[in-house]
């Protein structure tokens, strides 16, 4: 049982949860957006500074479970320095792949909350379901 847990909460996911990268707020961001998952109370918000179509700087804030917060931290690492056009191509499989663990249907909303922030906030896509 312990090994299964350890596998689920892999060391680097716990690391991103406990020591989130790019955590905080940007002053005068070009884009700022927040989403929540009312079912479990997870919140993720992101601030973007965009210059010449490139995400020059990014910060995220929020609270919630390890999966939602680690997922947001991992996503900011990937987004920093990326052209917005490239960022638009990131999909749910990329995000789940990066987490690298099997996510149960009950937790999929936790894992994809940060992607929703990116989609709705950074390029104005309507709130779309995971499927």
């Amino acid at each position, binding site marked *: *049982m312990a090994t299964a*847990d350890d596998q*689920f909460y892999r060391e680097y996911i716990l690391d991103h949860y406990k020591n989130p990268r790019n955590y905080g707020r940007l002053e005068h961001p070009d884009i700022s957006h927040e989403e929540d998952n009312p079912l*479990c*109370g997870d919140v993720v918000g992101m601030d973007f500074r965009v210059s010449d179509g490139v995400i020059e700087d990014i910060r995220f804030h929020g*609270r919630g*479970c*390890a999966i939602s917060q680690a997922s947001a931290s991992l996503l900011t690492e990937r987004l920093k320095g990326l052209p917005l056009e490239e960022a638009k191509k990131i999909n749910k499989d990329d995000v789940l792949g990066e987490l690298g663990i099997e996510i*149960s249907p009950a937790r999929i909303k936790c894992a994809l909350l940060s992607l929703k922030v990116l989609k709705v906030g950074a390029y104005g896509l309507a709130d779309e379901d995971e499927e």
Partner: protein
Amino acid sequence: MAIQTFDVATIRKDFPIFETGIAYLDSANTSQRPRQVTGAMLEYFEKFNSNIHRAAYRIAEEATVRYEATREKVRAFINAASTKEIVYVRGTTEAINLVAYSWGRKNIKQGDLIVLTILDHHSNIVPWQILAAEKGAQIEYVDIDEKGELRQDQLAELLKRGPKLVAFNLVSNAMGTINPAREMVAAAKKAGATVLVDGAQSTPHQPVDVRALGCDFYAFSGHKMLGPTGAGILYGRRELLEAMDPFMAGGDMIKTVRIEGTTYHDLPWKFEAGTQAIAEVIGLGAAVDYLGGLGMDAVRAHELEITEYAYESLSDIDGLTVYGPPPSRRAGVISFALEGIHPHDLATIADRDQVCLRAGHHCAMPLMTRLGIPATARASFYVYTQKDEIDRLVTSIKEAQRIFA
């Protein structure tokens, strides 16, 4: 008189699901069902499956008799005066919606006051919000004190304003608080209010006597008391039900239908339109029989013992906060938070050990907001819960603390 007790190990043999090895700590959400319940439903499907109230052949008569037999069982179980006061619904949610629609639309007017509590489940909040918005009525919520118990002083103040309706749960699903329902109903009735008691979390776990309680409406679900989903009960005092219009309209709830107009069926069928959840109602009857066999005083005594054990076991864990009152004033529900570990992460880790634990806002978002937390983990118990399952929960919690250390 000493309370008759029962042997949990024997009871568990009636619940095949425990052969899977799960520790089931989510009975406030939905209970497990014994063979006696599933067996009664299966018997209907295999031996007299047919529609009720309308066919002349023998198996349909059998189905009708079994379906109607549940009404008398439920009447006796909650000590209602008549089976006319026992309306079949899908569950507590439908029962409250029925009252909000059929009683509320006739009786709540602009400027009227509705009193609810911060402990209420969404199903006892949202129907009233919709009604209040439609009618221009007002809603006030009784707050809790530091111990998680309703502020009776605040209720008394609100009652001075002459509310039309007071609605509250007898037991909080989110914290387990047992509210002093008898006193609250008496005070509300004295103030001239109609009173609805949400019995979803009390009916499965303690003796209920609606006449002693004195409320006008009492709602509960079968699936939290060993019965199947899809069958629940609305109790209503006869004169109130008589004066109400139907909720759903269609077949079976009428006496005569003519192009010029329709006359409605007698109570309780006036509120039971369309083909009913026949197997589920029969299953609910079997569940009432099962609980009656155990004795509701014995059920409460067993749950109190488990709750005290769990309360002590959990309180011993560093970084764990239990919400709500001490075991003597709570039902078999313990909501708690772990420092640094989100309830969903705990529930996922517990699930790896086959421990079924609820995590979330428990359909009580106003209460979560009041407590300043997004969610809690919740363990809840029933007739089949044994101490070993609490020990397994404690092991899972310690495992989560090790992983997140």
